[in-house]
């Protein structure tokens, strides 16, 4: 469907003109000062800031568009691009790590560090999804997981090293402010090289757009060419990342928009996509400069592109032509059921209690491992107990939300984290922080809940209107994830007190949890899971699809709305305590099912208890792993959960051959 030219080429002319006008306005502002004298500061600003900034915007836009086009072609994945494949996040993490542990290397060549990070991220994703034949959904999901985990790790590094690294986060937002021509030149010659290589590889590229078998038939040495082109794309993307930061969505949008504008052949796209990418980024940057006040820019350009790109991706979804891979929907059912499910549920509950007691008593001290008892225990308990309680409540809430979301969308890969509900809660929290400065817990929770609800509602409405299958629903979630992350990045880039609150939230730390949090968490768990248990039959029927549910006389709309509101609230509460990225909402329902809990109510209770258990273990590990430092529990949980997601994806293909 994309092949139809639905965007006139004139539009790009108009947008290019608008960008030029914005640039001319900047020139108009700076020129009087620049022309005043040959050696004045105005001239320096004009020649070393205004002009290179425009050049960087154009070049980076083109380079990202070309990288996106190559990746999309080579992976046959219309959603591949540097940010969805975790390349940018990998580069960021590598640079943050290098800044702390190898400052000399960073001094020597930040581009190299970024390239290593980016290529490591891609290598990880490709090796994880190799067994599924690099199927697009798996690749993008793996990319999202790597990106989220890398982001959380970066956030943790920044938190641990304070001001020292804070500039990195501002860099992460992709600011185009320039002080010299060096970045522009660096990007320029990569772009020239990349373009030349792409032109030389035109024929193999065209053939690689077909499926593997046909490509091999036509005599293309698949893997060598593939890896070469991927490395080329990563090189261009990480150069941009190293020079100016993370600019999301240009690599995604430009090739898609080129196709929508009528570029059919690869040759046409090779020209059109970089041009469109350049115009897009230049225009965005122009708008960002226009919006900036005297106190500097409000939002980094990279965050702004994500703000524009997220909705664009959502709009594109129903229009994209995709290779249809065997559906993931039926891929994850477990083959067994236990004969006495409630006994198993009770056992899991006991397991959670034991974990909580161990977490309370066993710990590492300056003198090594010890089991607390007596007065030591009562002293320690007031620190440890609230943390454990909050972690358990959050895990339980995520487990419940995961079961509901998976059953309502009949999608085994859906979860609060994957669908962006967690980051939505973060965006809501950010909004409340911006409006109210330092709001209380109640206001923070309200904001999170509204954000989570908005995201989940948007996804379900999109899913219903665009008739999105399970795969595209996940893409919608990824788009919303990116959108909300952009809001977060923009607010964090402000660099004030609220930024620290959000950064802490992003990394998922429970270290400040108190008795109030524990109480609120458990109250929420109780209040939200009770109606779910009562409405267990809805959860039983809805996975069979709307048609069946309606045919059985279920009030589908009312049921969905009720359940979705409950799931959103549960995710919001959980995200409030442990951040957006734990993946517990994905794993707990699966584990419950793997253990043989199939019916809705058993599945729900089992998942809540497993979520709590996993979270308690993560909390304990996060306290012990780097003692005396405490790592964020959310990060730990995602390190447990991420690989499981990949395992699930890998399993699917074997079942379906």
């Amino acid at each position: 469907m994309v092949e139809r030219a639905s965007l006139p080429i004139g539009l790009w002319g108009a947008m290019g003109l608008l960008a030029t006008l914005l640039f001319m306005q900047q020139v108009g502002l700076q020129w009087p000062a620049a022309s005043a004298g040959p050696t004045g500061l105005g001239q320096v600003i004009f020649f070393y800031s205004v002009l290179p900034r425009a050049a960087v915007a154009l070049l980076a836009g083109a380079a990202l568009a070309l990288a996106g086009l190559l990746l999309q072609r080579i992976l046959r994945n219309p959603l591949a691009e540097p940010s969805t494949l975790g390349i940018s996040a990998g580069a960021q993490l590598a640079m943050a790590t290098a800044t702390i542990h190898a400052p000399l290397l960073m001094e020597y060549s930040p581009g190299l560090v970024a390239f290593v990070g980016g290529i490591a991220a891609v290598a990880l994703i490709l090796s994880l999804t190799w067994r599924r034949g690099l199927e697009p959904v798996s690749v993008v999901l793996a990319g999202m997981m790597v990106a989220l985990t890398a982001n959380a790790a970066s956030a943790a590094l920044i938190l641990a090293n304070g001001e020292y690294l804070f500039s990195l986060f501002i860099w992460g937002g992709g600011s185009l402010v320039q002080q010299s021509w060096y970045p522009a030149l660096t990007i320029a010659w990569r772009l020239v090289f990349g373009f030349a290589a792409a032109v030389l590889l035109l024929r193999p590229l065209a053939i690689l757009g077909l499926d593997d078998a046909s490509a091999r038939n036509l005599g293309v040495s698949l893997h060598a060419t593939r890896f070469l082109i991927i490395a080329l794309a990563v090189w261009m993307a990480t150069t941009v990342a190293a020079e100016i930061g993370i600019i999301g969505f240009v690599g995604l949008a430009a090739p898609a928009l080129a196709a929508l504008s009528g570029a059919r052949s690869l040759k046409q796209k090779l020209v059109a996509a970089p041009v469109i990418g350049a115009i897009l980024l230049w225009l965005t940057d122009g708008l960002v400069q226009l919006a900036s006040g005297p106190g500097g820019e409000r939002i980094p350009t990279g965050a702004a592109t994500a703000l524009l790109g997220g909705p664009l991706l959502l709009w594109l979804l129903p229009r994209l032509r995709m290779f249809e891979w065997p559906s993931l929907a039926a891929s994850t059912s477990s083959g067994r059921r236990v004969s006495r499910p409630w006994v198993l549920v009770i056992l899991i509950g006991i397991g959670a209690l034991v974990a909580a007691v161990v977490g309370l008593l066993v710990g590492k001290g300056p003198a090594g491992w010890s089991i607390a008892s007596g007065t030591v225990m009562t002293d320690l308990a007031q620190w440890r107990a609230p943390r454990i309680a909050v972690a358990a409540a959050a895990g339980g809430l995520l487990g419940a939300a995961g079961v509901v979301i998976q059953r309502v969308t009949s999608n085994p890969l859906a979860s609060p984290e994957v669908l962006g509900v967690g980051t939505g809660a973060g965006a809501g929290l950010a909004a409340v922080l911006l409006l109210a400065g330092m709001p209380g817990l109640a206001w923070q929770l309200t904001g999170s809940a509204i954000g989570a609800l908005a995201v989940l509602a948007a996804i379900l409405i999109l899913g219903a209107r665009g008739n999105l299958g399970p795969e595209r629903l996940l893409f919608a979630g990824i788009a919303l994830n990116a959108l909300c992350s952009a809001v977060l990045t923009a607010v964090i880039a402000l660099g004030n007190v609220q930024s620290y609150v959000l950064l802490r939230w992003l990394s998922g730390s429970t270290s400040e949890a108190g008795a109030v949090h524990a109480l609120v968490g458990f109250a929420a768990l109780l209040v939200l899971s009770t109606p779910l248990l009562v409405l267990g039959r809805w959860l039983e029927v809805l996975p069979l699809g709307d048609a069946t549910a309606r045919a059985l006389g279920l009030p589908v709309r009312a049921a969905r709305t009720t359940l979705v509101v409950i799931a959103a609230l549960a995710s919001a509460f959980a995200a409030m305590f442990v951040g957006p990225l734990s993946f517990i909402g994905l794993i707990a329902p699966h584990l419950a099912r793997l253990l043989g809990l199939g019916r809705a109510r058993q599945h729900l209770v089992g998942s809540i208890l497993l979520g709590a258990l996993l979270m308690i273990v993560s909390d304990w590990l996060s306290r012990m792993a780097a003692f005396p430092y405490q790592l964020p529990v959310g990060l730990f949980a995602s390190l447990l959960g991420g690989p499981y997601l990949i395992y699930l994806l890998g399993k699917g293909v074997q079942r379906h051959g």
Partner: protein
Amino acid sequence: MKPASSDQILYDIESASFIAGGRTILEPLDLELAPARIYGLVGANGSGKTTLIKLLAYQQKPAAGAIRLLGRSIDSYGDRELARCVAYMPQFTPPAESMTVRELVGLGRFPWHGTLGRFSADDAARVEIALSQTDLLVLADRLVDSLSGGERQRAWLAMMLAQDTRCLLLDEPTSALDIAHQVDVLALVRDLSRERGIGVIVVLHDVNMAARYCDEIIALRSGRMVARGTPEEILHPDMLDRIYGIAMGVTPHPVTGAPISYVA
């Protein structure tokens, strides 16, 4: 629900039409369907078969016109009330993830016990009856997803039987099955219809299959009903040309003598 008298009209469709995205999918249609008979809906792809059966199942509302079920406008039924009269199987049955056959069939009782009602002994008994009528008792504790295509289709049929309705609406129940299982499923539908006196409206791709198992065939083309009649009336070269738009011939079955169509 009191059983209605057997001579009551099952469906009375009065100039019902359906429009999607500005395109008329189903032209205004008048049709009366009697109870306890098997109707086969045939026609080429995009002829409006699925739309018609979705209208009958109230999965979609007609753009204009009226549909009466057992003498009452279909709008006037409540969700569960309708589900106690009509059971519908969509064209693609979704995966019933980690659900046993008995549990799936048990869901057919939802219209009777509702969200909070108790799953009574009567409910359990009807599930067992449905399982035995579909020959699934041996497989009752297997996971639905571990069954073969034909067995899975039988499990869904059993769920519809447990719903205990006057009418079954089946949208291409045999599309994913090999020929042996197609015969299996359709023979089962026919036997059940005879045994329980249920009306069946079934969308079928294969006009020969329709002729073999249906009492009456309704043919659609481009959203219009182009033919309606007994299998003998429909299986006629002129008729088939009107339905499918290609030249087809008819020959008697070598054993039964019933007409069989073939592409000329």
